[in-house]
């Protein structure tokens, strides 16, 4: 059946290719001087409405009038706008447009130049997608002045932040791990630095970001909810440039230039943070509970980006991108001592004694993670219409947490001074030491080989591709426990026994070593075909199909994923769009629902599991108001199946099974409406986005029920999300950006009630028999701690106003850029985590606001 469907879809695509070639189309490709395709460039007829945005391979397709000469403008931020004139008599035309860098230094922030829209345009078949350039990212107000790709995406409709100030994203009710984040095609398995303060994408080397949240083209797969496709910028082939940035959180250096003039270029950037120097003391000063910052007490990162591009010939380009980054996030060790002096104090001469019991506990948490990512790509263009990109990628991710605790309890007798302060231990009657070390590791080694062929025809852009990947994962927990009990043999010893050293101990020792999890392998293969077709001036579609094959030990699965998006131009200024996409995913990141100690573990498909799937239907309306403003409204419904969560009460620290015994599989639903109003040009630019959305989960499969199979809200069920971003050019190199964000509060699972309940009347072991049981009631009532609903506790709503002021000073040989930012101008206490605290011997629920009013400055020198 599936084969027939695939053949039918293929046939439809071929028919479309043939039939649509009867109208006049201008198609082509936009690339830079070194042949790098420019994704997200805007192509538009100068005297008409509409236009197109180039895809990842730089290709576009545009319908133009058949009976008149048409002038086309091609623009891309940071490059000179080019104009081409297409004659009135020309039939279908294919053009290659090479853009030259504009009159600015590469990498220098450009504020005040004309901005293009983030949407793909009203004519494009693509919906639910945005194109962001690095300049837009850099101009957004940012926490500690750290411009960030993912935090800019968070201001878009349909996207929620994982926590306040955190770079993680939830897209259209999806989970964190359902986002495919790639750097030059290589997947990223943890895109966070500093526990989410910033993402690993250094905006100094980012060229363009394509963000899809629905209607996914067939070339994308392997994740359910979104694609964040980051292209890194190639270095200048002819001149050397660089920049140095100093900020409160980190400092950066970037350099680029030719290795072989006109043939080979490099672009290198590095960042290192010094969280402990400025930000941590600053936050510590703001917290009531100084220990609240302990979670971030020893947190820092560094990363390095490098890209080398070599023009082999006019038709061949080879590029190598490398990223390496490492984080550590160790909590401050925590220790406490409790001592109680018991009855029966005595004395020997003038030296008093006392009996005591003492407990000493200490614990420490450590957390490190790293990414090493590489992408080697060969671009081959045998002719003007064909382009073959072959790419080998590698992504090595390592995450490690350690938890160690020592509990030392002792009872004995001690010499004390007159105030009964212990000055020397005399006899320890009994001592018990319990030492636990827990090491949790999550490693992913991802190797992939992919080839994508782009074939540009008049009215059609056909894409065909194949990808093979091999993933080796290590989700493992090693536990080591050592207990020692030392007991005095004669508990009725006397002082003279002690003085004569006349006592002995019995020592019992026990050690336990255990490990759960082992290396797991996942082999994936996928193939796709898609065609972006302009049927006529009004209608365009993108039809595709993707087939994914997943194989794990002893099992394999196939997922057939149809993709469709269509646009109907109602008039020159408005269009209706619709899209459907099925996606699948074979790897999951397990996240514990514990509010205090979250943990993250990547697991692949395992025996008995099926690939997770998502079916998403989107409907949209786009309106162009003049040439400066665009409005879009989109609705979506997404159904998730075979998604994974931890079971109720599951813990990898006590489990002795493999991971598949800790998880449950279920389904989910998300739906919502998104609104985006964008002003793309003029002295005042910006956008307003609003989303209303809901997201639910249900895990009711027999034996895998979560919350007894009841439907519950997902962590991303935060109905309202409003963002307003405005940038105003002030002249003379000054500009100011203000951003206001309002989001419904975060959702957490919070065990907060004590109830009474228990098992039915019965006898577990050999216990005293009362009478024959009636089973009519719950017997042996015990106190049980529970909660009303998973993710049922809603924290207060989040909102903050952020302002960023930029000043550029030209030096002739370079440029200085100063940035002054204020995060959370009116000091809203946005709560992103809670914990139970104690005040006046009573429990209080404390909310921790990680980021209050926080001013920051940064300075960038470009040359």
């Amino acid at each position, binding site marked *: 059946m599936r084969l027939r469907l695939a053949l039918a879809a293929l046939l439809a695509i071929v028919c479309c290719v043939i039939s649509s070639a009867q109208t006049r189309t201008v198609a082509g490709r936009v690339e830079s001087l070194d042949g790098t395709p420019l994704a997200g460039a805007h192509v538009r007829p100068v005297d008409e409405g509409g236009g197109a945005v180039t895809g990842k391979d730089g290709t576009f397709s545009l319908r133009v009038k058949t009976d008149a000469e048409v002038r086309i403008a091609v623009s891309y931020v940071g490059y000179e706008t080019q104009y081409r004139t297409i004659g009135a008599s020309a039939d279908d035309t294919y053009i290659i447009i090479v853009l030259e860098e504009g009159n600015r230094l590469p990498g220098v922030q450009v504020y005040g130049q004309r901005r293009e829209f983030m949407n793909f345009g009203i004519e494009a078949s693509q919906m639910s997608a945005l194109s962001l350039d690095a300049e837009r990212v850099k101009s957004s107000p940012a926490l500690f002045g750290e411009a960030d790709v993912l935090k800019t995406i968070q201001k878009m409709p349909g996207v929620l932040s994982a926590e306040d100030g955190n770079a993680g994203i939830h897209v259209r009710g999806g989970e964190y791990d359902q986002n495919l984040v790639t750097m030059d095609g290589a997947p990223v398995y943890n895109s966070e630095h500093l526990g989410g303060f910033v993402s690993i994408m250094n905006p100094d080397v980012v060229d363009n970001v394509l963000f899809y949240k629905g209607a996914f083209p067939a070339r994308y797969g392997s994740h359910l909810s979104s694609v964040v496709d980051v292209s890194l910028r190639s270095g200048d082939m002819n001149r050397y440039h660089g920049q140095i940035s100093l900020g409160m959180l980190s400092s950066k250096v970037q350099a680029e230039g030719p290795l072989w003039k006109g043939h080979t270029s490099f672009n290198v950037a590095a960042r290192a943070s010094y969280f402990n120097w400025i930000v941590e003391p600053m936050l510590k000063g*703001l*917290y*009531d509970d100084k220990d609240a910052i302990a979670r971030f007490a020893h947190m820092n990162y560094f990363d390095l980006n490098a890209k080398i591009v070599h023009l082999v010939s006019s038709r061949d380009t080879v590029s190598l991108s490398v990223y390496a980054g490492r984080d550590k996030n160790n909590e401050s060790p925590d220790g406490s001592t*409790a001592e109680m002096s018991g009855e029966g104090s005595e004395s020997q001469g003038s030296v008093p004694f006392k009996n005591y019991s003492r*407990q000493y506990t200490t614990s420490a948490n450590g957390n490190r993670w790293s990414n090493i990512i590489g992408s080697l790509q060969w671009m081959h263009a045998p002719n003007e219409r064909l382009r073959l990109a072959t790419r080998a990628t590698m992504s090595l991710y390592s995450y490690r947490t350690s938890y160690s605790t020592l509990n030392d309890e002792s009872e004995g007798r001690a010499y004390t001074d007159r105030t009964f302060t212990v000055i020397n231990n005399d006899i320890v009657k009994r001592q018990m030491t319990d030492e636990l070390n827990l090491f*949790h590791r999550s490693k992913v080694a991802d190797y992939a080989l992919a080839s994508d062929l782009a074939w540009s025809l008049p009215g059609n852009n056909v894409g065909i591709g194949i990808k093979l990947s091999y993933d080796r994962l290590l989700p493992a927990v090693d536990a080591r426990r050592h207990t020692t009990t030392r007991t005095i043999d004669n508990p009725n010893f006397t002082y003279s026994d002690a003085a004569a050293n006349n006592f002995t101990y019995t020592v019992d020792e026990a050690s336990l070593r255990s490990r759960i999890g082992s290396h797991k392998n996942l082999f994936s293969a996928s193939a796709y075909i898609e065609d972006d077709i302009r049927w006529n001036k009004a209608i365009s579609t993108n039809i595709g199909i993707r087939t994914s094959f997943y194989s794990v030990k002893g099992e394999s699965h196939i997922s057939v994923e149809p993709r469709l998006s269509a646009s109907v131009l109602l008039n020159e200024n408005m269009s209706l769009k619709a899209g459907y996409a099925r996606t699948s995913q074979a790897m999951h990141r397990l996240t*514990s*629902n*514990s509010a205090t100690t979250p*943990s993250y573990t990547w697991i692949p498909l395992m025996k008995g599991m099926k690939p997770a799937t998502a079916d998403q239907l989107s409907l949209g309306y786009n309106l162009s108001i003049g040439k400066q403003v665009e409005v879009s409204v989109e609705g979506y419904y997404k159904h998730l199946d075979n998604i994974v969560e*931890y*079971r*109720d009460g*599951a*813990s*990898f*620290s*006590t489990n002795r*099974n493999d991971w598949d*015994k800790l998880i449950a599989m279920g389904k989910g639903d998300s739906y919502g409406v998104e609104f985006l109003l964008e002003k793309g040009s003029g002295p005042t630019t910006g956008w307003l986005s609003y989303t209303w959305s809901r997201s639910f989960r249900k895990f009711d499969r027999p034996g895998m029920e979560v919350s*007894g199979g009841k439907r519950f809200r997902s962590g991303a069920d935060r109905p309202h999300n409003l963002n307003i971003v405005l940038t105003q050019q002030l002249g003379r190199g000054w500009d100011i950006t203000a951003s206001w964000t309002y989001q419904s509060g975060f959702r957490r699972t919070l*065990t*907060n*009630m*004590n*109830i*009474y*309940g228990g*098992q*039915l009347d019965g*006898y*577990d*072991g*050999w*216990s*005293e*028999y009362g009478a024959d049981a009636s*089973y*009519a*009631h*719950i017997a042996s*009532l015990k*106190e049980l701690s*529970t*909660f009303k*609903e998973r993710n049922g*506790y809603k*924290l*207060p709503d989040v909102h903050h106003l952020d302002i960023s002021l930029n000043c550029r000073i030209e030096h002739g040989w370079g440029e200085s850029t100063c940035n002054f930012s204020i995060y959370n101008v009116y*000091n809203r*206490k946005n709560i992103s985590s809670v914990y*139970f605290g104690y005040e006046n011997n009573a*429990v*209080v*629920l404390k*909310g921790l*606001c*990680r980021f*209050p*009013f926080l001013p920051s400055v940064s300075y960038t020198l470009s040359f």
Partner: protein
Amino acid sequence: MRKTPIIIAVLTAVLAASCEKDLPYTSEDWFKQNVTVDAVATCDTTFTATIIQANPYSRLMLYSESTGRTYDEKQEADIIKTAEAKLTVNGTDSYPMTYDESAQRYVSSYVPEEGDDIHIDVSTSMFGNATATATVPRKPEIEVSTNSISQTDGNDSILVDMSLTITDPSGENYYRLIVRAVTNPILWSDPSQSASSSAIPSGPQYKRFASDVFYSDDDIFLDTSLTKGFGGWPAFMTNVFSDNGFDGRTYTVSIRKKCPNGSIRDNEIYVELQSLSKELYHYLKSVQWYRIQDSSDFYANDLYIYSNVVGGWGILGGLSASRVTVPVR
């Protein structure tokens, strides 16, 4: 000129603001005290219900400065004795419930029958209304045959191997199996009543002991969430299970029971299969998982105690049992 100090004062005030805040904890509905209703409508047995106060953490946990630990203020349940409880059966028959001081439960004159739909309304002046609904399931069909009886532990114990045949009707069904052995009276001295204790020693006396524990390798008793043994049950074994895997079929399962040799009351044990309502099944499962939870395990996911009580906590379940007596002579 005077603007500067004002600006500085405002900025200082803003900056000095604390970064933590006490959330409205006890005032929100989510955290309010409420009632817990615990009741199981058991076929052929007079219906009773326990109504207890449910407390948010703040009412129960106290912090000890001297030990640095938290502890429960209350060790005993706050049983509510003044609630108005009413039972409605099959939408028509109404049964008031009254509090029985000796049993510490609310009792009614209603005796559940198979297939009854039960609705309970509980009203308290302090906590408002709570309601729950359940259906009494049909009695299950079970046959038991003894395969062998052998001696072990130096003849101190006997092992009884049995085959149970469960006839499962189509549709979702949930069960609990107990295999109960009761001993003859044994002369017993309570070890907790030591000579040094201030309590009056109870002295040796004759007592009976009982156990429902059995063993089986069959997957229907496998629960991978039960990572530790409890109360004589081995790890990963549960006696609360669903018909997942044998829905609508006749299923035979082998079990083993270990008993003390020669001291079983009447030389017989009984095997009882209980049909559970779906809600009761989920409740009992969650309680079984709860009792092996380690409160000091920071990595454990929070555990939900299943409840079908609207406006409160707890469970209203339905249960019907079929019992077979097995001689072990």
